[in-house]
């Protein structure tokens, strides 16, 4: 598992959303719920503290592109250092002004206006103004393979009301724009107009963030060195003279680098490194980033006839001993789960947790009821990343106890795993924790082209989804929970464990925070301790 093969540590859309033509103004609802519901936590630190010399962060993989417009949040560290977002998402889930001072939704979430912070310059000296932001959004939409098209699919026009004011108009309601413009989804990380015109952002940086790329002392694909941005508007936010992002794919090597002080922080590390890190006197943060389990895609039984019967899918859920697998995969830091959500997600329903207790007899009874008393053979697509293959082997062992003979096909390359996703009745899954609306878009909705290859649909689900988009924030949570109940009842998945992707750091470092509401640490918050 600790192979040098490129590992998408934060695979499967940890916080992203997928495009949908029918994106209806739902975003503000979800947002309000999130804000309202949460107890207020301590505000983010803005206090100036000691400026350290060099911060070296070990990254599990190197970025295909340095341009935040791609929206590739699994490379967020590379963007956060050079680009401040319009809106900053705080650890407690609330938002605070970034490059934008104020922002408001018009009625029905069909337009969104922003008031920019004055006196902000890009690292190449250009001034940040409304025209620059407009150009930036158009650049994001035009970028081939970029994810902007999912957030602004129904964007019709952008009006520049003044030097620092602009309004976005949409044909259908587009909630969650604060989230889109936050450091989470990178749309708000505006790049300088000259760089946008020169199309050089893929390999160099020109942002309004605390640091900028020092190309001379960087080795593409291995070491990216950032130095303080002279034109930065918030001098207090610069904690380091130099920040180096170093790609180390081998977890053991990462641990050794941390212990010897060559590296101060390591992000996206496998949970199996925690015990050794603690033994080595290192600190860790283990947010439950990944929901892992089986995705029983072939719900209509086209490839594997038995999966067409809900009783079989439920039998599979009963056959799994979630506690044991969680202990194995989560190495003591994971949490078993029977639903595709965890405390902190809007669609999380505590009642569903013990819907499928480990009950081999019940599983066998359901199997024979569905006409497969002595089980059947089930082919499962898998990849040897983030422990999916170990999960697959563990589940194969348990399903064998109820007669289901698993053929686990482990690919050593993530691309091949996605490519063959539709050719298997089931697959091991490691999926991010997302609001229900985005789950519907990417995971189990009819348009989820990748994760729902057989286009399974459910009338109630679609009805609830439409309500969710239109529902005000306070009702959104109960709608989301009803959607989760249907998914769990229909046993479209066999969730097993919420497994953490661990950030490890030395004792002389502070600011590596992760909560259930903002799972990913914010690179610019990392500063010398004390």
């Amino acid at each position, binding site marked *: 598992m600790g192979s040098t093969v490129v590992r*998408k540590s934060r695979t499967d859309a940890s916080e992203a959303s997928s495009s949908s033509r029918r994106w209806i103004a739902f975003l503000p609802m979800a947002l309000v719920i999130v804000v309202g519901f949460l107890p207020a936590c301590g505000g983010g630190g803005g206090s100036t503290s000691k400026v350290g010399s060099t911060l070296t962060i070990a990254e599990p993989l190197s970025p295909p592109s340095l341009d935040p417009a791609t929206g590739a949040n699994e490379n967020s560290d590379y963007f956060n250092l050079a680009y401040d977002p319009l809106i900053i998402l705080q650890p407690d889930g609330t938002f605070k002004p970034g490059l934008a001072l104020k922002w408001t939704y018009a009625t029905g979430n069909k337009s969104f206006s922003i008031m920019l912070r004055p006196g902000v310059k890009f690292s190449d000296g250009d001034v940040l103004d409304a025209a620059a932001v407009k150009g930036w959004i158009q650049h994001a939409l035009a970028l081939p393979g970029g994810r902007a098209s999912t957030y602004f699919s129904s964007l019709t026009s952008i009006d520049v009301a003044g030097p620092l004011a602009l309004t976005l108009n949409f044909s259908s309601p587009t909630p969650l724009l604060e989230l889109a413009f936050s450091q989470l989804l990178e749309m708000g990380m505006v790049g300088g107009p000259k760089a946008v015109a020169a199309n050089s952002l893929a390999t160099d940086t020109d942002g309004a963030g605390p640091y900028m790329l020092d190309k001379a002392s960087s080795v593409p694909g291995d070491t990216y060195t950032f130095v303080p941005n002279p034109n930065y508007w918030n001098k207090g936010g610069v904690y380091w003279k130099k920040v180096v992002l170093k790609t180390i794919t081998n977890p053991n090597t990462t641990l050794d680098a941390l212990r010897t002080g060559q590296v101060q922080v390591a992000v996206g590390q496998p949970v199996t490194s925690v015990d050794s890190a603690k033994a080595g006197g290192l600190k860790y943060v283990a947010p439950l980033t990944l929901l892992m389990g089986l995705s029983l895609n072939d719900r209509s039984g086209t490839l594997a006839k038995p999966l067409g019967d809900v009783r079989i899918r439920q039998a599979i859920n009963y056959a799994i001993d979630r506690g044991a697998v969680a202990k194995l995969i989560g190495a003591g830091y994971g949490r078993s789960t029977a639903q595709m959500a965890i405390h902190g997600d809007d669609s999380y329903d505590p009642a569903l947790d013990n819907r499928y207790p480990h009950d081999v007899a019940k599983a066998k009874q359901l199997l024979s009821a569905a006409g497969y008393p002595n089980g059947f053979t089930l082919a499962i697509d898998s990849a040897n990343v983030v422990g999916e293959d170990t999960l697959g082997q563990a589940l194969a062992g348990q399903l064998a106890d109820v007669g289901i003979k698993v053929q686990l096909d482990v690919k050593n390359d993530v691309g091949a795993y*996605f490519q063959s996703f539709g050719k298997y009745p089931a697959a091991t899954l490691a999926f991010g924790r997302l609001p229900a609306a985005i789950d519907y878009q990417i995971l189990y909705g009819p348009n989820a082209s990748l994760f729902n290859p057989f286009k399974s649909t459910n009338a109630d689900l679609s009805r609830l989804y439409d309500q969710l988009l239109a529902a005000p924030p306070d009702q959104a949570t109960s709608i989301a929970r009803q959607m989760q109940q249907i998914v769990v009842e229909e046993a479209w998945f066999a969730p097993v464990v919420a497994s953490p992707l661990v950030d490890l750091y030395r004792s002389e470092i502070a600011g590596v925070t992760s909560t259930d509401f903002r799972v990913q640490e914010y690179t610019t918050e990392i500063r010398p301790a004390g």
Partner: protein
Amino acid sequence: MFVPESPALLRIVGNRLLLSVPLLLVVSTLTFLLEALIPGDVARTIVGPQGTQEQYLQLKHSLGLDQPLLTRYQQWLESVVRGDFGTSLFNHEPVAVLLSGRLSVTLSLVVGSTLVAAIVGLLIGIAGALRSDIAGTAVDALSMFGLAIPNFFLGLILIALFAVAIPLFPATGYVPFDESPLDWARSLVLPVALATPGIAVVAKQTRDSMRVILERPFIRTLRAAGVPRRSIIFKHALRSAAAPVVTVLGLIFVASLGGTVVVESVFAMPGLGGLAVQATTQHDLPLIQGVAVYFTALVVVVNLLIDLAYGWLDPGVRIE
């Protein structure tokens, strides 16, 4: 006294370079065709799971992956002939920049381990050839032991001992020479220590060929003519025994070119080996082609050096 017959050397160089042109062509074609058969492509990897089918097709088109294979190969060939290796599909960096950036790492590793293997191997080999049986069997044991341990196994142990337990050397990373020669050297000590199999092979070959040479009649003639033992061993015998050792060094260089991928992974060093693995799993075709051509060029250069060494070492050798 020694006058190299220059025409012969030019002929050797000419032959070798002439051979390298078809070689590079064969290698690049071979990797291109094999690569084309690989399922999945770079666009799918970049777009990742969240990418919708439309975004995937949009990227695929912009990267020109939907063109027929032959035209893509032809375009690549034309650009290579002009010296432009194209840009990596994955991170848009020019391939040439990517490769040259990492060449110094791989060269330091490979040349370093070959040199270590040569020097240490020669000394042990000569000692084994001269001393009695005990040293001889010691050389055998060392050589077998050196080969027996998989290098990443040894690497992990070395790191645990000399980087973590006793922080003598850096556990990972590579410091470019121009930055600081001392750190450059320190960062190479452990990785180059993985050259033990090379040392073993050179020692074995040296011992075997020295023993054969020392039985040759001209050794007895020189000995009887009064030439001191030291000069007989280190000047005359070693020179004749050197040719097969040079061949073995060539093999070690080529083998360690392949071996660096594991060393680079264990020590997290940005070398060509790691890049090759990364490029293959990301289906980054221009980068794979670039690495393949670089590797082949390195091998051709090494073979050229071996031919020249032959010409110098054993003038009697007529290269057909």
